[in-house]
């Protein structure tokens, strides 16, 4: 028993290290093709020994398909492909059929969105299309066919990142989900807010988002169950409103967490209130 506890705490420690590493950059891996006006904090290799090492580690993640690729529907990786991914991710967060969606576009999204087809891209993502789908340009018609109500607002309110969108989705049971996301370049995205809670979610890896009570032991419990299911955690972040209140875990994994596995996690971890998989 003591032995198994020791393993558990070592795992937690590993997870914390991984989470801390990703936290240092504050942006997802793989942002080679930066977006307008925005510079990743690590865009220049630092001469500092530690930071230089971390930079190397992240660079190793890049693939030839980051250079020649992605295959995508144009015209812009940030304004089109990234927009599809943002709303596609929100579709998963909602987890149920969506009947109504309202998009508020900020910054460069608001200024040049129409010319870049950002509006169509956002609708396409909500409909479940991927960035390389040739039907993105027909998204308005597809939404009409699927009885999806869409509404756009273009805001000139200043935002932290130029390519920002706020998505308010209402599912068929009338429940609202509100998320804010940024398209940070090269088709990469960052979901920064879910239902008023600050998060950091990239969608680069299979991800589960868990809403849970902020009580001691939940993180260890969840990571333990994942370990038993042979799921390796790549990155993990924990967010909360306030001590003891609702909290969220974003867990990015190397392999997808199947529906069956999600049921197991839900049945074994009692403090979980909701679980979404992306």
């Amino acid at each position, binding site marked *: 028993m003591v032995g198994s506890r020791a393993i558990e705490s070592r795992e937690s420690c590993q997870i914390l290290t991984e989470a801390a590493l990703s936290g240092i950059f504050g942006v997802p891996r793989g942002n080679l093709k930066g977006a307008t006006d925005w510079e990743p904090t690590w865009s220049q290799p630092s001469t500092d020994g530690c930071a230089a090492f971390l930079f190397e580690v992240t660079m190793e993640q890049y693939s030839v398909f980051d250079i*020649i690729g992605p295959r995508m529907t*144009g015209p812009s990786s940030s304004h089109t*492909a990234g927009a599809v991914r943002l709303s596609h991710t929100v579709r998963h967060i909602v987890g149920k059929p969506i009947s109504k969606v309202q998009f508020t576009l900020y910054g460069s999204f608001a200024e040049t969105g129409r*010319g*870049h087809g950002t509006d169509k891209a956002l609708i396409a993502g909500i409909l479940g299309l991927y960035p390389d789908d040739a039907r993105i340009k027909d998204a308005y018609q597809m939404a009409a066919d699927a009885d999806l109500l869409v509404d756009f607002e273009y805001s000139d309110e200043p935002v932290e990142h130029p390519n920002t969108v706020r998505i308010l989705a209402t599912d068929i049971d009338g429940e609202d989900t509100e998320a804010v996301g940024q398209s940070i370049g090269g088709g990469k995205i960052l979901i920064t807010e879910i239902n008023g809670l600050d998060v950091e979610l990239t969608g680069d890896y299979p991800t589960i988002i868990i809403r849970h009570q902020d009580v001691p032991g939940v993180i260890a419990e969840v990571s333990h169950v994942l370990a038993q299911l042979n799921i390796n955690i790549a990155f993990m972040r924990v967010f909360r409103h306030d001590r003891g209140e609702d909290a969220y875990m974003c867990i990015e994994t190397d392999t997808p967490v199947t529906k069956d596995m999600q049921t197991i996690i839900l049945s074994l971890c009692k403090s979980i209130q909701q679980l979404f998989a992306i």
Partner: protein
Amino acid sequence: MSSRMFDSGKALVEYCNEQHITLGEAMLRREVAMGEHSREEIERDMCANLEVMRSSVRKGLTERVESVSGLSGGEAMLLFRYSKYNPFTGDNTCRAAASAMAVVEVNAAMGCIVAAPTAGASGILPGVLLECGVERSWTDAQLVEGLFAAGAVGMLFAKNATISGADGGCQAETGVASAMAAAAIVELAGGSPDQCLDAAAMTIKNVLGLVCDPVAGLVECPCIKRNALGAANAMLCADMTLCGITSLIPFDEVVSAMYAVGKDMRKEYRETAKGGLAMTPTGKKVAQRMKRINSK
């Protein structure tokens, strides 16, 4: 296999010479070494990229494409047809330039393309590679190898400089795309790894300092025509290399110079649409018109 082989062009060429392999093969080996996919899977994925490239060229040259903004479309087809009538650039170069434009026109019309290295510069590599491939009867397997060689050069820029217009201006997008295309065709024509990088160095030298100044912030003007230039630049530098001309400044130093110039560029010239052609009276007028469409 050395994990540092993509640290510099010099290290990469040394590795290739030691192993008696091409740049493309080195790139492929590194991808396999990353451990996520088998060699066959990686080759198949790159072949899928080649297919999308091919269909985007075909679409732009045969169909009536028009961009969402209404600013572009149809010019690639014009140039392609004209290429039969004794063009000054030679019919081969003229067709490659038209093909490059075709891809970016398709991109602007919300068609499917392969970013190479970015969407705005996506025409150069397919334009050059596919046109030269037809001309010289290269097989698909050879073209895929060419794509890996191009990827190797792009990777060197990504690791040691930038391939983002927002970081380094147009030189980092269409410039790097030309360098990638030049290296690919030099390799497929039988040039050495060293010659591939020399050709890449020369293409960048030719467009060093090129700013990113998209009118109304859209990937259309001047991007589409700069892809045409990029194709011609790549083919010219490939020819210069293959006839024995070398670059006085070595590849790695050119990469550093490109990065330094990019960093010195004012923000106005790095994809913000606040400088260069975007700020001409006509450029501003177009931007105003787009804004009105947007607010409707």
